[in-house]
């Protein structure tokens, strides 16, 4: 199997590109990961980037204990990136409170895939423009303000990792997978939940034909229509070919 991947992203409307706090990475053996740094964290973008890089380079086993041990790497990367001794007082106080991010990691291998998730980044598995599976959330009302998070303060992770979600499945030639950060995932979940397969099909066809220009036009129109929470948005589209 071969995978063709396109990634589209936009920072929150009104923000500068450098304030974008989602992260995406693809490894060399079918590993992919998306992370969404939480606004209330200190330098959450660095933590999110460290998480996805660590995942695609050496993904953990899908157990809470294995993920907790694996997370030491990204936590240290985040720590080392901070010049603790020379921070302004307010940045120091904020940095001491740490950072946090969500994660969705997926690995494709031999027509099989398995994924793990902490938080509200969603994976959508589609075939011929029909939804086969959504993961880890399945209903629009599950998108809230308090998703499970991975923390740089290691002692806070036990509670989150008790909520570690794992899944596996098989794929076929022509399948399309979408990995989408929370705001846009909530929009798509609403369409799926509307119970109108024709409508869902139309939107999946549209997403299958996205390019950068159409993606930005889509985000702009959804924001204008009040159908999208103003947030960083990332969509990774994976075709099995």
């Amino acid at each position: 199997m071969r995978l063709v991947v396109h990634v589209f992203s936009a920072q929150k409307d009104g923000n500068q590109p450098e304030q974008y706090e989602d992260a995406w990475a693809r490894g060399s053996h079918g590993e992919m990961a998306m992370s969404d740094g939480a606004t209330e964290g200190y330098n959450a973008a660095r933590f999110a980037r460290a998480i996805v890089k660590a995942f695609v380079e050496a993904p953990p086993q899908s157990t809470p204990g294995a993920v907790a041990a694996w997370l030491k790497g990204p936590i240290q990367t985040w720590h080392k990136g901070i010049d603790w001794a020379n921070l302004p007082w307010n940045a120091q106080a904020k940095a001491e409170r740490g950072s946090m991010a969500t994660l969705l990691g997926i690995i494709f291998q031999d027509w099989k895939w398995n994924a793990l998730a902490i938080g509200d980044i969603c994976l959508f598995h589609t075939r011929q423009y029909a939804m086969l599976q959504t993961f880890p959330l399945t209903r629009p009302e599950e998108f809230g303000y308090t998703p499970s998070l991975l923390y740089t303060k290691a002692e806070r992770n036990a509670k989150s990792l008790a909520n570690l979600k794992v899944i596996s499945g098989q794929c076929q030639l022509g399948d399309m997978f979408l990995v989408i950060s929370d705001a846009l995932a909530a929009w798509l979940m609403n369409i799926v939940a509307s119970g109108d397969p024709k409508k869902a099909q139309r939107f999946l066809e549209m997403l299958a034909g996205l390019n950068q220009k159409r993606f930005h036009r889509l985000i702009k129109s959804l924001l204008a229509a009040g159908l999208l929470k103003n947030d960083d948005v990332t969509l990774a589209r994976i075709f099995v070919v």
Partner: protein
Amino acid sequence: MYTAEISRKEPTLFVFAVDGSGSTSRTLANSQESIAQRIALALNRLIFELVVRSTKGEDEVRDYYEIAALVYNGNGVQSGWVGALAGKEIAKISDLAKSPARLEERKRKVDDGAGGLIEVSTKVPVWFEASPSGTTPMCEAFARAKALMQSWIAAHPNAYPPALFNVSDGGSTDGDPTALARELQALTTSDGSVLVYNLNVSPTATGEVLYPADDNNLDADGRTLFAMSSEMPPHIAAALTENGTVIKTGARCCTINADMVQIVQALNIGTRPASLES
């Protein structure tokens, strides 16, 4: 109402009106410190918290909050900022981040993320001071707060509504501020009315009443404070309830003869947004 997201585009305003009359030099029970010192400490800690909440990275403080800290005493009403912001009335949170009057240093050990501890020196900032003297011109303070809020709301008509926190240890000496307090409560953004908190502190905390829902058992001063205070919005009531305080329907944003712990709780929860930009 009271659901607007606090963001850089739509910040909110907190006005603190602090009684700096001579009586605030009284020492608090079980403490070496005066009422004035402890109020200043509470306010500086609160601003510290708001600055930290607004800090995103090394060089980025997002302007979610604008703050005025007025002192009213025998010298009238003046801004309580000291240092670079002295004389300024409304300060943006990013200006406060940049301009503490001084930083008091202390050493602390923190987690190094790898199971160990590293020693860091923590800096505790000071922005606000009050020197107790003379009378309690609360009407003048409310009039000043009203003027500040009126022009602020004109520039931010859709913001999360501003709040006034009046912290005092006694009654007004320049008349009854009730009418002015009601005029303040009549100021509105599209998200609701200005909230007026009256936080009365007592050095001994005897006869305390927290967030009364009626004025039946209050003395004359207590009834005035009750009449001056906004009805508590549900999200503030919920946050106080979560903290273990009993809140009845119709409770007012008002404490009478409270101790400093209760004043700090009221300030912390009153400045907690229902929704902060994500």
